[in-house]
């Protein structure tokens, strides 16, 4: 994998709020802060794993980076060669061209393909939308890609309904890659798949990454999958990044109590019959009604007065290791030993 440390996507203080409306006049009485000030960088050829529980805003963050929503605030910068494009300030016409560099692989392979188009047409469609090549060239390209993701020639004229989940996900991947993007958001791409098929898709995504020099933002709730695919891992909790670092650093030396609890909760294969889990009480707070101070303080066993009063900033505590916790230096947290 090519990792020269050159950024491809920079996200600065990105916010995505959704209004809560009430009553006949639909007056706005508050906001669900789905993504609440997230900053991160994704380098060329690297995979950033984004892990968190349902409702923490990880999919919303993925969509907001691609501007599938109109973010409430913040900046997304796409590096195209030496050019820097501020994605959120572009017009719709300019956005079209930029989107060719940024694509998405969706979670549900049963909902993301057009059922009325053949497999081949599904993959050609993005090329047509972006005005790339002549119709012969488009077809040849789509055919090549579909072979590369492991479909057979006789599959190309069939409709998506005749394929299994794993094969549909392969088609979804071919479609996302057809216009040669540099950056791909993969939103739980193996969530709906059986374990034996999951490995096929994960390996395919890695092979394609090496071949096309892709950068992935890989979103998953499954820490084992995230560990397998990621160079760096970011942990999200109720709209905030709480920690992010190199993969092994984050797994072995977590510095945020939520990361520690998450590690502890994940069932393990190598350590059987383990009975030392940290059990987090209760559930995450409502993103429409956040507690004061740190977002995690309501469930954190280390929380002090400061945590309930003041919101911690995401700060770099060692080289490339960022954490949003007041107590990070004082805690001696337990990671996963491999």
């Amino acid at each position: 994998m090519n990792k020269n440390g050159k950024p491809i996507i920079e996200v600065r203080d990105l916010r995505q709020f959704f209004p809560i409306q009430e009553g006949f006049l639909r007056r706005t009485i508050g906001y669900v802060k789905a993504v609440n000030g997230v900053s991160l960088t994704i380098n060329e050829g690297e995979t950033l794993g984004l892990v968190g529980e349902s409702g923490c805003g990880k999919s919303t963050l993925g969509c907001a980076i691609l501007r599938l929503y109109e973010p409430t605030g913040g900046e997304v910068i796409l590096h195209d060669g030496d050019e820097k494009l501020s994605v959120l300030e572009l017009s719709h016409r300019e956005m079209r061209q930029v989107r060719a560099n940024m694509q998405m692989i969706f979670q549900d392979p049963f909902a993301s393909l057009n059922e009325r188009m053949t497999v081949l047409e599904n993959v050609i469609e993005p090329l047509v939308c972006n005005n790339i090549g002549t119709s012969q060239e488009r077809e040849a390209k789509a055919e090549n890609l579909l072979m590369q993701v492991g479909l057979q020639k006789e599959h190309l004229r069939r409709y998506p309904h005749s394929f299994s989940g794993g094969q549909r996900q392969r088609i979804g991947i071919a479609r996302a890659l057809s216009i040669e993007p540099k950056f791909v958001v993969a939103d739980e791409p193996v969530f709906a798949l059986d374990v034996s098929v999951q490995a096929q898709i994960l390996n395919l995504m890695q092979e394609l990454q090496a071949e096309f020099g892709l950068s992935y933002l890989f979103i998953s709730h499954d820490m084992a999958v995230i560990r397998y695919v990621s160079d760096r891992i970011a942990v999200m909790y109720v709209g905030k990044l709480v920690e992010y670092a190199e993969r092994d650093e984050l797994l072995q030396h977590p510095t945020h109590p939520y990361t520690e609890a998450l590690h502890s909760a994940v069932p393990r294969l190598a350590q059987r019959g383990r009975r030392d889990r940290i059990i987090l009480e209760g559930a995450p707070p409502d993103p429409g009604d956040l507690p004061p101070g740190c977002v995690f303080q309501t469930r954190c066993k280390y929380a002090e007065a400061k945590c309930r009063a003041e919101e911690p900033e995401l700060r770099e505590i060692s080289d490339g290791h960022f954490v949003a916790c007041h107590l990070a230096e004082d805690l001696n947290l337990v990671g996963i030993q491999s």
Partner: protein
Amino acid sequence: MSKNNVRHNTEDLILEIKNLKTHFMLDTGTIHAVDGVNLTISRGKTLGVIGESGCGKSVTAHSILRLIPSPPGKIVDGEILLHRDGEVIDITKLKPTEEMMRNIRGNDIGMIFQEPMTSFGPLHTIGDQIMETILIHNDAANKNEARDQAIDLLRQVGIPNPEQRIDAYPHEFSGGMRQRAMIAMALCCSPTLLIADEPTTSLDVTIEAQILELLTGLQAQTGMAIMLISHNLAVVSEMADDIAVMYLGKRVEFGSTDAIFDNPLHPYTQGLWQSIPSVDGPLEKLVPIPGIVPSPRDLPPGCVFASRCSEFMPGICDAPKPVPIIEAEPDHFVACYLYSNG
């Protein structure tokens, strides 16, 4: 680990499944959802059943409780023997609706389902639904006693403020809370066996940890046996004493958790181990099992795994006869020709 001793004392047996076959007769053909499965569950132990979607693990569970919709489903062969106070009842011989079967459901065997969102009726409070179960299974109880009992159960499964929460409707509970309430309902007649069908699949990991901890605690307290059905190998590895691996309606391997993990024998089990990522242990490249699970409508002849197997032996594995089940080491069974001598 001494808890993984599989040698079953016949006195401790709760449930024995022998050569169970549950088929679905559809217009388009017969689906052999469960096709010759053998399982044993002992008092106080946890049996893990693992396999991918469509392998028949849920149909096995539903067969035990006689919840298979009929038609089209039917138990066509085999025995499900329930050991109760010295007597042995063959569940397959009972009618799904008869008194004895209704008694077994709930009193002897409780079940928690995968979907905590849809397992409760939306129109009644959680309390009413738990109380209904108590009143049906315990003739002596009156409404007030049932309510007290339901509050106790909710407290036992860790629902805060059970006195108030008992009057809540299912939609007012979060997924984890609903799963707790589901467990409370399954426990209300102190079953000797709890069947948990993917109990944590739709839950977040931190909530999953809460539920697994709760089940372990309740098992230690009540001594009930648990049949844990899951596709998540890590969950099963942490919870189970014995493991049965299923593939396309067959039980391909059965043994203690240690045996299944440290010395997997069936090529499918070995393939599963190499194809799942783990959060701990060395980080190795995953080796996927090639191909996909064949359709249960037209099963290949001979071994059902033959078409994806790396050890496939032409003329042996695809011979149209049942694959022998071999005890490769004490209490470790595998259905594979690789281990048959001759």
